[in-house]
């Protein structure tokens, strides 16, 4: 069916849209709804609508502290992933054909391996009695183990591991769109490897960098497993804080408001970085 009529395409789209409406639209409405209620949710003694949950949160030092920490960690994770992503992306885009499959399987494996499983791997590596501390002590570099596990650093390491493949995929897509002759032309004109990267490849990768940064940052701020397993005990990330508000504290109104703020931030990141990328993308630039 080369071209579907308006009627049949609507009919084909309808069940999915209905499902999205029921399973995503209605729940998000209720999330917004709950975020405007205050009171005791266990006893179902609530009042609203009010914006007090939001105004309380935005003046609550503890919440703002956790939110700020989430942003700082996610920002660092994204920057590190960007730096580490380039060598991997350049390897993937120019590896000989026979090597491509094994390289892709290794580089993209964190996407397919259960996050819970790899988090336990990090526990064994980062723990007080873990691989790194044992190695450092064995070499005599330190006398007592350094605390690595259950820190923000551990969250960062775990998150970089998870988001790195997304960054690599975005960068590879950008690099693959650049015709090889373009960097060859730059080399023949006297540019060494570093200058080819700086003047040609990096500027042309801006769309890929934008996509990768967006993806990695929004995945980081909404990650749950990594902070829950590798982070310090207690709420240490916005997602674990939301979970705690619901399950332990029964603060459904506050928790909903936090969740809604997280959603807004995630959407803003996608929109904002998307716009920024479009503005910075070289192909869009026109002479004055």
């Amino acid at each position, binding site marked *: 069916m080369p071209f579907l009529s308006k009627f049949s395409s609507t009919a084909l789209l309808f069940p999915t849209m209905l499902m999205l409406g029921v399973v995503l639209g209605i729940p998000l409405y209720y999330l917004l709804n709950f975020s405007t209620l205050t009171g005791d949710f266990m006893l179902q003694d609530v009042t609203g609508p009010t914006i007090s949950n939001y105004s309380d949160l935005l003046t609550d030092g503890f919440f703002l502290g956790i939110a700020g920490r989430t942003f700082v960690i996610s920002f660092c994770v994204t920057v590190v992933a960007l730096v580490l992503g380039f060598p991997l992306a350049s390897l993937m885009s120019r590896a000989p054909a026979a090597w491509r499959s094994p390289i892709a399987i290794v580089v993209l494996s964190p996407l397919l391996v259960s996050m819970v499983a790899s988090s336990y791997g990090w526990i064994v590596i980062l723990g007080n009695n873990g691989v790194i501390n044992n190695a450092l002590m064995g070499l005599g570099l330190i006398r007592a183990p350094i605390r690595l596990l259950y820190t923000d650093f551990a969250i960062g390491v775990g998150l970089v591991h998870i988001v790195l493949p997304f960054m690599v995929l975005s960068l590879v897509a950008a690099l693959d769109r650049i015709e090889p002759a*373009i960097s060859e032309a730059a080399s023949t*004109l006297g540019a060494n490897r570093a200058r080819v990267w700086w003047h040609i490849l990096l500027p042309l990768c801006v769309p890929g960098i934008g996509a990768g940064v967006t993806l990695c940052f929004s995945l980081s701020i909404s990650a749950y497993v990594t902070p829950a397993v590798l982070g310090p005990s207690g709420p240490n990330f916005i997602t674990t804080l939301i979970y705690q508000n619901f399950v332990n504290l029964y603060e459904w109104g506050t928790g909903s408001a936090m969740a809604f703020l997280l959603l807004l931030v995630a959407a803003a990141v996608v929109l904002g970085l998307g716009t920024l990328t479009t503005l910075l993308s070289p192909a869009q630039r026109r002479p004055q």
Partner: protein
Amino acid sequence: MPALDIQSVTKSYNKLRVLDRVSAQIDKGELVTLLGPSGCGKTTLLRSIAGLADIDEGRIVLEGRDVTKVPIHKRGIAMVFQSHALFPHMSVADNVAFGLKMQGVGKAEREDRVKRALSLVRLDAYLTRMPHELSGGQQQRVAIARAIVTNPTALLLDEPFGALDRKLRETLQVELRRLTKELGITAIFVTHDQEEAVVLSDRVAVMNAGVIQQIAPAVDVYENPANEFVANFMGFQNIFDAKVRSAQELAIGDTVIATDKIDVAPGEGIRMAIRAERVSITAGHREGAIPGQVSSSTYLGEQNAYVVDTADGPVTARIPTSVARFSMGEAVSVSFDPAAVRVLAS
């Protein structure tokens, strides 16, 4: 001293020899085309000169400097690619200025030279345009300006006009030739189009199977092919087995034909070639001509192309429509212009 001295260059990909002890000397200011079918090694040779491909053996000497081990960006060459390969994020002026910037040429001089290079390709009004705002021909002109502005020791062109339509291609061929001659640039031009090679170059190097089959002025390659491959590739439609009868006679099957002087001892078997335009057809049977039957006739406008089936195989002839016409199945004889018969080296 040649501007470019290619010495016994050899290269293999996975045990397949793509360049087999290729040697050639190219003089300063000379325009040489590398001509051959795809896979003959011409592009690999060009990329080896540029440094974009490593070679296994041999040396490449540019103006007396052995550059075999010199990285691409220090060879002082410039290259024009089939896909133009302009930097899509830079204006026309920035594209052309790139090589000068890499050489550390100061801003004022850079701007001056960029303008001059662009005016040479008649694009001085397009300084601030972006590459995607130009037509295909303009893009390729910018690519040429970008390459020549650096005063390269050799200008390498890899089928630069392959993607353009015929008319544009012909214009740019003429322009490129004028430009390289005016500036005295040594240029090597890769193409698979024999017409392009003949029009453009001082000398043509016909390549096949990683070997230069013949390197000679265009006229020679076109009129005196060194061997059967070159004859075939340069469009000799008729190639036969023949036996040398005397210094001026060849036997094809039972027919004896006259030729110009032959440097092969009588009695030896050789291969001979002749272009279809130099074959004539007469109705009926004739002494010193090969008898046969017209088996196909194709109208080409000014000419008719006939295939005549003979006991020694099909012969293709092109006869001006104003001279004669033959019908299918007609019994005819074909004869060859003695001055146009070429004996091929085996």
